[in-house]
């Protein structure tokens, strides 16, 4: 009998995600995939698996309750840190764990950021157009609902690893490059765009996020007349109400709003991960800086397997501490971070 992950209770925004399916822009399909691809690579590293094959449950805002069926599962928790418990014991995030058959994993709300990831070793789903991720806006796959059972592999190891996650959960300064209509915005508009502190609108989705702000909008005269043009994730459209709107991996492929800038690829997950209300600023950079950041992100991702370390148990998290023999010094009293 196969091993499965049973989604006992699904939170509102659960979907299967991998690195998406690039190459279908000419057919009207954006690449989609995980909002925070680094979290997939972290999950793979924590499970000692290949990142290329990563497939995880992306959890928007909160997780749900999950159970292993038919055997033990190896899981990893990455991305936006969420309140997680395994049979009542609090889990450290990020980390990999053995989810024993019948044990219940409970994942609550995010304490920072928006998208948490539950990776499961050997998680499988049908491949459509070369990828297994759901593309909700494009009608491929769908949100995962309570009662779903997903095929996986028997646990290849017992987990117990953690790593130091790069912070992309707290908004901050987002680097941008010019896009095709940037020079149609006045110096004043571009200056204000860089000087304004934006807040991520609560209505953000996998398609995009509106940037709320006080003061005048950024629309320019004559902009209504722009003919629809190809748009890609990262592009910042100035929409009808004058607010910037950052396109995210599951965006539409054609848009008629002018683009003031485009977010560099290395910083896009910071926009995706920012929780509603988080402050964000934009700054134009030179192409060289964008390419350097791109190379640094690739290097960081490649080095992840070398950065994982055994997780030292925090006594605070052990539910039945009194039953342990502590005198022998086998348990570190130092909380691991």
């Amino acid at each position, binding site marked *: 009998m196969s091993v499965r992950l049973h989604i006992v209770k699904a939170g509102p925004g659960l979907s299967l995600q991998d690195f998406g399916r*690039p190459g279908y822009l000419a057919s*009207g399909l954006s690449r989609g995939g995980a909002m925070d691809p680094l979290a997939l690579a972290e999950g793979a590293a924590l499970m000692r698996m290949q990142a290329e094959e990563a497939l995880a449950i992306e959890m928007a805002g909160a997780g749900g309750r999950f159970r292993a069926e038919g055997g033990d599962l190896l899981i990893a928790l990455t991305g936006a840190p969420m309140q997680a418990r395994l049979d009542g014991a609090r889990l450290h995030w990020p980390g990999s764990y053995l989810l024993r058959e019948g044990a219940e994993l409970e994942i609550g709300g995010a304490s920072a950021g928006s998208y948490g990831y539950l990776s499961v070793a050997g998680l499988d789903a049908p491949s*459509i157009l070369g990828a297994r991720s759901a593309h909700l806006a*494009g009608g491929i796959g769908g949100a995962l609902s309570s009662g779903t059972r997903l095929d996986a592999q028997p646990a290849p190891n017992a987990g117990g690893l953690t790593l130091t996650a790069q912070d992309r959960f707290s908004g901050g300064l987002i680097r941008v490059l010019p896009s095709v209509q940037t020079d149609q915005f006045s110096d004043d508009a571009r200056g204000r765009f860089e000087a304004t502190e934006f807040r991520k609108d609560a209505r953000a989705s996998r398609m995009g996020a509106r940037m709320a702000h006080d003061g005048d909008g950024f629309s320019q005269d004559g902009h209504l007349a722009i003919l*629809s043009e*190809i748009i*890609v994730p990262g592009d910042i459209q100035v929409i009808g109400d004058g607010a910037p709107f950052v396109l995210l991996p599951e965006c*539409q492929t*054609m848009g008629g709003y002018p683009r003031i800038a485009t977010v560099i690829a290395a910083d896009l997950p910071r926009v995706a991960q920012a929780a509603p209300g988080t402050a964000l600023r934009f700054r134009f950079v030179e192409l060289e800086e964008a390419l350097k950041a*791109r190379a640094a992100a690739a290097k960081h991702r490649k080095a992840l397997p070398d950065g994982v370390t055994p997780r030292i148990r925090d006594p605070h998290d052990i539910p039945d501490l009194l039953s342990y023999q502590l005198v022998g010094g086998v348990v570190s009293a130092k909380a691991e971070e």
Partner: protein
Amino acid sequence: MPRPEFPQVRRMGEASLLVSFDDALSMRANAAVLAFRAAVEAEAWDAVEETATSLKSVYLRFDPDRLDHATLEDRVCALLEARDWHEAGLPEGRRLWRIPAVLGGDHGPQLEEAAEMAGMTADAAIEAIAATRLRVLTIGFAPGLPYLGQLPDAFDIARKTELTPRVPKGGLGLAIRQMVMFPVETQTGWRWIGQAAFDGFRQGADAPFALKAGDEVQYRPVSVTEYEDAVAGLETGLDAMAEPLE
């Protein structure tokens, strides 16, 4: 602002170029777009990972770790100068699709309104639409959604400001001398004028996207019964709607 010179090559972030042949839609510029994209594909430049077209531009995505912007821009400009792409003719391998559709009535409740705006009766509008061979100008917005053009001048009507909440799969929208054919149920500002027996995005199929930019479409007005039969037979009948175009 002075009108830019076309074709125009612009950077779109760190890994894309956009080559525009006009800033408005014309059949002529769109033909140049289709021809130029085919030429870029034929060049098979190393590190160019994807190409696509809009109504008036060719998009190139590349790997900036393997190919720098200036080198690719030089190659693109050299190819642009190699000939007048407006005169290059449409690429090979295109198909003509004859698609059964119910126009007007319950299956196209805004046809009357569109016809009135175009200054003709509903019957005359149906006749004019059916008589026009429309080019797939581009595919986008949603997976497999074609923008089809151009209809006669009379159909240069604006989109509605109020959105129609649920136009079903196969629904036909009309505005600005163009038509769109929705591959999934959609909310839209295009006037809903009919319902086509067509499946623009078949996820499990070997060729999931039936239409390609440059293909041509001619709608064949049918009765509701004929339309329903055509929808029922789509799984096998879709390919039979297409014939090669010369």
